[in-house]
């Protein structure tokens, strides 16, 4: 491999060595670690057969779990769409003391183990926690409700929105806004007519990724949800419970539905990113 340069010109298409070795290693690793295990799940799904598969995922408990998961993820994503956009805007456009610290804070949900986040949020909002002492007497229970699930989801997925919008906002050509100012546009008009359309694809892509992440979140939620069937039981947890009951078909069917959601959302997010990068090139 490393002597490619001394080959006749026709064969010396690759100047740099290590192509076979690096590609081979990559494919081997991906095959063993990612593809074969995922294939095992898909094979299991095929083995279950469409009838039984449908019966499992349309059982009342499974439907309730999917509904709870989707609703909570939607609440979390709406919150993050606003909060994440606000953070990206403030971090890019304004200068103020502590800005770098605030920026670093946005990475905490990525770096902090989800179980630790779940533990802390649960204790914060339970009756004797910092927030719980205020909210509980006011009759707002967060722990063991869908709001708690949504909050745990929002916590773990907010960086996706911030970190997708931030670079696009940074790269925006100031001339566009300057032109709007000279034409007499008010700040809100500048934002809604000039800035927002430019960051829209990236913002949507970030929200899609955050939604996908919320659907699959487990560690942060098991602590705060209380895990009551039909009330606060999420789909990932139901799959886990089925495993503990040695009902591998049940677990596999629910996992496959979640996998399907994840792959569709990955596709949507990639298409949006592609749209974003095209928009970006045109606007330059």
């Amino acid at each position, binding site marked *: 491999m490393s002597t490619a340069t001394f080959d006749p010109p026709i064969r010396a298409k690759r100047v740099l*060595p290590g192509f076979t070795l690096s590609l081979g290693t990559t494919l081997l690793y991906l095959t063993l670690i990612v593809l074969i295990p995922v294939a095992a799940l898909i094979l299991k799904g095929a083995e279950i057969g469409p009838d039984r598969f449908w019966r499992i995922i349309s059982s009342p408990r499974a439907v309730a779990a999917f509904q709870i998961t989707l609703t909570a993820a939607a609440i979390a994503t709406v919150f993050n769409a606003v909060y994440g956009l606000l953070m990206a805007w403030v971090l890019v456009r304004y200068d103020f003391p502590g800005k770098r610290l605030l920026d670093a804070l946005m990475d905490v949900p990525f770096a902090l183990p989800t179980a630790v986040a779940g533990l802390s949020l649960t204790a914060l909002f339970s009756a004797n926690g910092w927030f719980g002492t205020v909210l509980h007497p006011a009759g707002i229970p967060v722990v063991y409700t869908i709001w708690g699930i949504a909050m745990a989801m929002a916590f773990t997925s*907010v960086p996706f929105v911030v970190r997708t919008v931030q670079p696009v906002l940074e790269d925006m050509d100031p001339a566009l806004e300057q032109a709007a100012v000279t034409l007499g546009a008010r700040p809100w008009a500048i934002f809604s007519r000039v800035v927002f359309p430019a960051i829209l694809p990236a913002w949507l892509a970030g929200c899609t990724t955050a939604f996908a992440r919320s659907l699959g979140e487990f560690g942060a939620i098991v602590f705060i949800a209380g895990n009551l069937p039909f009330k606060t039981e999420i789909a990932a947890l139901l799959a886990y419970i089925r495993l503990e009951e040695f009902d591998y078909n049940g677990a596999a069917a629910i996992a496959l539905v979640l996998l399907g959601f994840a792959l569709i959302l990955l596709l949507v997010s990639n298409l949006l990113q592609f749209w974003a990068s095209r928009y970006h090139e045109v606007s330059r």
Partner: protein
Amino acid sequence: MTVTTLTHLPGQSRRGERLLIGLAVSLSLLFIAAPLAFIFARAFSRGWEVYAANILHPMTLHAIWLTTITAIIVVPLNVAFGIAAAWAVAKHRFPGRGILVTMIEIPFSISPIIAGICYLLLYGRQGLLGPWLQANDLQVMFALPGIVLVTMFVTAPFVAREVLPLMQAQGTEQEEAAVTLGANGWQIFTRVTLPNIKWALLYGAVLCTARAVGEFGGVSVVSGNIRGQTNTLPLHVELLFNDLNAVGAFAAASTLTLIAIVALLVKAVLEGRKAG
């Protein structure tokens, strides 16, 4: 006149700016900083001695040890994979490159709990390889190999994602120059490529470590939660919490939080380097 002053009109927008900054700061303090601070507040709520006793409890020490071993195995393998993937994709052109990049990113979109189920269906007793593993007396599930494999799945993209864009941006000119000067593959990598990517590589490795030690959902499925045997640190946190030992759970969680904070500090330092 700078751009920022031009884009904001006087009077009203100054107030708007302060309002938005205030809103962003207070929301972030409540939503992200408070949970972080609360971990340490609870962990130390009964003083240093109780904290130390919680950390030094044999079960906790075993969990720390198991998590450390897992990270020691997973991170170097992940670094090797990340470098190989980045080298193949960034320094060469071949059909299917885009697909390969998407494949590398797939573990990001798959919930760890699904990853755990995949592994159980492959290596578990009723799994595809189950009968063969049993015949050869190999234990993968509910043991260290299973924990390591699932952690490898979950952390697979971490190093590649940091190194790949950098290698792509740097192009191949320097390496090609080294080839014309007669350098072999290993020399090119260690003397030309590695110095260029070392900080991204370090950051990727730190992120991978943080994620590896914190993995919960996937490990939860494959570990079997055997007390004092296959309980990693995050699983131990859950176990203590379920045992109603909240202070113990927070003490164990504080060690994981420290690792996360170190990862963030490394990031801040490396970004400062890039900017300076």
